[in-house]
């Protein structure tokens, strides 16, 4: 599949924003968040920037961005529609949390708003993952790892920013549980991602014989495509560039979203250097960006099997 930058930017940035909102909301709901007022507003607003920039970028993928509002209507059947609704609804508890933090309220209202914020963020991530997971035509997106990975990458890339904020304002000694949980998450995400790549590599190739049903007659070779030029289908669904550099890009992604945050957290906790936290967060989001690029670029669409190998 063609890795469209608008969609990659959207899933990575909004994912991080929702991950941040989810953890912040959870911390507020359970009352373990150590800060109030500006201490809440800064990470909340940072999440707002990530989420909104991503949502805005996603409209650049549309042929008719001005009609994007129509996407809210088909929630009964379409995950994309559900995602649109969930993403917009999540702004409501976000505004409530912002309001409570602004007036300095820290009671039950803030807790409920925090819980709703976490739920809305999780629901939106679920919808995003299901947009891709529900496509039967792309086997690489239907594996069991896709859904948990979307959650993990969102929580990891967003959580690291929240931790970076806490580390820079309250110091590293405040709570060890959160950074250690993020460290564990980075390792688990890396393990599951490697498992996903193994599954993707083991997928059987789609053949022209199967696509056309002519394999009952013998061996089938795509002799000629319909046109000598590229078409929408070959440009969009038969993207081969990534597989050439796939192995190297996978290592880069693993190093950035797995190794770098894990080492960064360990080193920061060991040395007390809080400035390592935002660097770990930056590395993670860059790593997820590479991972997401590969998620699209390495995925094979069934329709490519109709075309001669040179065109597919």
């Amino acid at each position, binding site marked *: 599949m063609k890795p469209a930058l608008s969609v990659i930017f959207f899933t990575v940035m909004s994912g991080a924003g929702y991950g941040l909102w989810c953890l912040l909301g959870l911390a507020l709901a359970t009352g373990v968040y150590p800060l109030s007022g500006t201490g809440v507003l800064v990470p909340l607003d940072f999440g707002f920037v990530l989420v909104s920039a991503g949502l805005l970028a996603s409209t650049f993928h549309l042929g008719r961005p001005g009609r994007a509002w129509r996407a809210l209507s088909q929630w009964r059947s379409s995950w994309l529609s559900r995602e649109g609704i969930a993403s917009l609804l999540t702004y409501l508890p976000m505004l409530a949390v912002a309001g409570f933090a602004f007036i300095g309220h820290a009671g039950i209202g803030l807790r409920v708003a925090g819980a709703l914020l976490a739920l809305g963020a999780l629901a939106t991530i679920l919808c995003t993952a299901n947009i891709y997971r529900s496509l039967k035509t792309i086997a690489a997106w239907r594996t069991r790892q896709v859904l948990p990975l979307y959650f993990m990458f969102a929580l990891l890339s967003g959580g690291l920013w929240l931790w970076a904020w806490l580390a820079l304002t309250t110091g590293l000694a405040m709570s060890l549980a959160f950074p250690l949980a993020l460290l564990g998450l980075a390792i688990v995400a890396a393990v599951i991602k490697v498992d996903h790549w193994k599954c993707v590599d083991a997928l059987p190739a789609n053949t022209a014989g199967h696509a056309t049903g002519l394999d009952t007659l*013998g061996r089938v070779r795509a*002799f000629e495509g319909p046109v000598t030029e590229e078409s929408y289908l070959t440009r969009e669904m038969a993207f081969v560039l990534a597989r050439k550099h796939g192995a190297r890009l996978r290592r880069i992604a693993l190093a950035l979203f797995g190794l770098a945050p894990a080492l960064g957290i360990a080193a920061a906790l060991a040395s007390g250097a809080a400035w390592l936290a935002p660097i770990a967060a930056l590395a993670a989001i860059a790593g997820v960006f590479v991972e997401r690029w590969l998620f699209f670029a390495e995925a094979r669409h069934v329709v490519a099997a109709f075309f001669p190998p040179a065109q597919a």
Partner: protein
Amino acid sequence: MTSLPAPSNKKLGLVIDLDICVGCHACAVACKEWNDGGDFGPLPDDEPYGAEPHGVWFNRVHSYEVTADRSSENVSAPVPQMVHFPRSCLHCETPDCVTVCPTGASYKRTEDGIVLVDEDKCIGCQLCAWACPYGAREIALPHSKTAASDKGRKDSKRGTMQKCTLCVDRIYNETLEVRDRQPACVMACPTRARMFGDLGDPDSDASKAVAERGGFALMPEFGYQPVNRYLPPRPRRDGSVAAATASIPAEETLDTAQLPPLLRWLDKALSR
């Protein structure tokens, strides 16, 4: 409304005979011609006369080389066979291209099962094209390098998904003669390799041809239940090219007794 309607009794679709299709692309060209000017057009092109023409086609013809497995045929070296394969929307009964649509633009008609895109609702997210394993949908790209003279005419339809309409603006068109109320691709086919009909009616000519010839659906494992059917190439008869070539004897025999005396002497002299 992108939830699928209850299955209709009428299932309009195409039956394509792979045995007699000669791969002339007339169906594809006729389709482009009709839909570029018809009620549902236009089908915009980028640089149609430029170095790299690029545009939307509802119907595309592929060519495949099929070589029979040695075990299944008696000839020692099987001769490859060319199969031309027109590919277009199969107007599936339960397609995901309809249900994934976030806007309700992609829909399946209750009355005859035709799958259509409402161009006034489509936002061009392309999820329906991703959901289709048959490559039936192509978007009219919004960021084209259209020639200035073409602007205005084509821009209104840019940025939306395009697909085969089964010539819904022909088949019910009362301004056309009854015999012309068929899809443009069917009308154009010089070998009558395309048949239009109601595949929900077992007594229609299309359904009968499917039953008689063992018509098959493409990639049924997706569960989309395509309405269109393909008729497989017929098995080769013994008089086929491969068999005829194999039966030619290595040396021709000459009955010299039949020759006139002069030629009989010549044969004798030359054979010495």
